[in-house]
């Protein structure tokens, strides 16, 4: 009795091809996934880092702005940015008055002031009456300045 034989690949060749395809796919997945497992940590402030504008006064005639800034967060900050706007219905500060600010420990208050003739209306593009002031804290992590997302704002009125 004759057994009918079908043609096909040798088993060894089949094993070699299967194993090589498996290795190739594994290598591709490794290379692709490794890209997404980043070794660079995200630059962000600790949760609970925040400043508040405890007191704000603005003199529309003399254009003098006085701020009492308090660190109400859980962590010290190394500085803050002060921005203002002179647009009606403003929701963001668009002119920067100060990029360095002052370092503040938790619970510490600081009195800051800005006038057109004196300290730091360094941005001559600011004209007219101010309508909004905001402060954004920043901290130093390693050698990098990291800006915190928590921004305190106050509308100004004459």
């Amino acid at each position, binding site marked *: 009795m004759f057994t009918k034989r079908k043609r096909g690949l040798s088993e060894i060749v089949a094993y*070699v091809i299967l*194993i*090589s*395809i498996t290795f*190739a796919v594994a290598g591709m997945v490794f290379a692709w996934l490794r890209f997404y497992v980043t070794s660079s940590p995200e630059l962000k402030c600790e949760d609970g880092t925040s400043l508040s504008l405890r007191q704000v006064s603005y003199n529309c005639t003399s254009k003098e702005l006085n701020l009492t800034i308090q660190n109400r967060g859980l962590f010290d900050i190394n500085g803050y940015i002060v921005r203002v706007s002179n*647009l009606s219905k403003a929701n963001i500060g*668009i*002119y*920067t008055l100060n990029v360095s600010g002052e370092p503040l420990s938790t619970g510490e208050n600081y009195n800051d002031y800005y006038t057109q003739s004196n300290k730091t209306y360094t941005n001559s593009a600011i004209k007219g009456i101010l309508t909004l002031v905001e402060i954004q804290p920043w901290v130093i992590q390693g050698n990098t300045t990291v*800006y915190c997302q928590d921004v305190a704002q106050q509308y100004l009125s004459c």
Partner: protein
Amino acid sequence: MVISKRGLSPVVATVLLIMLTMVLALMVFLWAQGFVSEQIQKGGTSSDQVCQQISFDVDSSQIANGVNLQIVNRGNTPIYNFDIKFVGTQDTSMKNFNFGVDVGQATPSQVVPVPSGITQLILYPMILGTVQGKKINKAVTCLNSGKTITLS
């Protein structure tokens, strides 16, 4: 009578098979790599993850034939450019605008011409990254980080 056939030693055969397998795997890997889209990174992080870290706020005021934008970058990633999508009642278009906002900075005024019939603007920030494995800079649009401005 025993007929002995000549052949390779099993050890040599095993080594040859393993080497052949690894070479084949490498060839398939290099061939398939061409089908994978190039990956862009910024500071060692994939562009997708950098896009998620972008934080910015927008104010706007309508002017004749356009919109005046005010943008502040609140995050720690510089915004290289903006792609702005114009959404209208009839159609939608996207256009690149060559202005950016650095970290901690604000743009007090940026006029964007708006055609008639447009009801919404969607601002997509762009970051400048490098193609992985090459010294080529490439701008990436962060389509998941857009901000919408509704026009009256």
